[in-house]
């Protein structure tokens, strides 16, 4: 994403989430979102198949188990 795309995404999604970005926070948010975008480029750069499962697997909970 170029800086304009990052700014557009950040502003649009912040509005969607009702997450106000104060003017003094916005430059830092853009900087860190650009860093996340760099990380995403690395993550998305590895070709994985539809059969590659995510790391997390849900475990059903039996009624007899204490769980909280």
């Amino acid at each position, binding site marked *: 994403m170029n800086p304009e795309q990052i700014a557009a995404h*950040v502003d649009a999604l912040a509005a969607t*989430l009702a*997450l106000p970005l104060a003017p003094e926070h916005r430059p830092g948010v853009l900087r860190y979102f650009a*860093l996340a975008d760099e*990380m*995403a480029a*690395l*993550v998305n750069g590895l070709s994985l198949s539809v059969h590659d*499962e995510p790391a997390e697997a849900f475990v059903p909970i039996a009624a007899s188990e204490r769980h909280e």
Partner: protein
Amino acid sequence: MSEALLLQNAGSIAAAVRAGEVSAEAVAQASLARIEATDGTVNAFTEVTATRALATARSLDARIAAGDAGTLALPLLGVPYAVKNLFDIEGLTTLAGSRIERGKPPAKADGPLLKRLEAAGAVLVGAQNMDEYAYGFTTENSHEGPTRNPHDPARVAGGSSGGSAASVAAGQVPLALGSDTNGSIRVPSSLCGIFGLKPTYGRLPRNGSYPFVASLDHLGPFARSAQDLALAYDAIQGHDAADPACVRRPLEPAAPLLSLGRRGLRVAQLTGYFHDMAGREARAAVARVAEALGGLPKVELPEVARARAAAFLISNAEGAALHLEDLRRRPQDFEPLSRDRFLAGALIPAAWVIQAQKLRRWFALRAAELLREVDVLIAPATPVAAPDIGSEWIDINGQRFAARPSLGLLTQPISCIGLPVCAAPVWGVHPSMPIGVQIIAAPWREDHALRIAHALEQAGVVQAPIARLV
């Protein structure tokens, strides 16, 4: 007597209390006095639980005086310890390094790991400074002030469990508990020159502690020897169904196995990314350990930078989602050093995180293949030794990196796949500071990592001297 004993290892303290050479109360007093004398410099503690510590110690002394055999057998009898302030302590608000949690109701009970340490005879003396909500590698906490490195107070202690590591290096306590999501036990262990254990993901229950990233959070101990680390780890093992990630496994004590040392273990040195992202001193620390182990074959994991990126995205997105409501309502109350990162994390697309979770499993499978061929992997723990407080940048082989997120460059890929790691400190490769190595084992083989740490300690290659503060 008790002052000198406090600076010994936990096993020696417990033995002296057991033998009646010193009371548990005197040891607790010595710990409280050293905290009083040194914490103005170190700033490791946010709360000192003196009343509770003395009451616990006196209760132990009364049971010892009554000749209670069960009490006398406790492995950590009278040993002072402290915990990162994200652990629940009965009667105290769990701050997790934040301003936002202040004023919330106090915890109704100790977290399970505290209960287990106390059941083993240990005595809690306080709660400790950390990066806010565990999102940082330096413990430059703007609300509490930075924790300073006991070996050079101008430098950071590392984070996010910086108070816990610094207190052990400062001789305030021989044991502490912290958490590690991306390196928060191993980074401060490296920078403060102590031992730290990040157990296998799912080994220890995390209920009773403030979460950061549920899919990556681990809890674990700090100590000044591999033996103490194993004693503490053995005391806190056990399943708890209240943590859905905690795996039901039998207790697998490591301390009785330490004397096996390297016997039968295949050890190799991780290279590639772990060489490229390590500075000169980090490389020298690994070389020294490799030499002590008789020279090690070099092996590589594939796509480590992508695995680190996966950990970064998962942490950024999950951590932000956890705090979304506060980020909406009161962003000004967040730690300024991590607030903008949290805000950015709230905006990460779901597809990136799902791909990161898939990549994480792919990388875990590659690591499993490698760990069929070797039992233990050696890698540097941090790219550099402790930077000065306030540093914005670190230099790794002539390349400039943002200091605060980059201290975890070498730890993130390993916690991403939940492998157990013992961080062990090497001295003499930097003019004045320690730097750690990671001793990485296969899942559920904490004993292998601890055995190598113990063997290296016996050989004098890794050690954790107490800082000369007073």
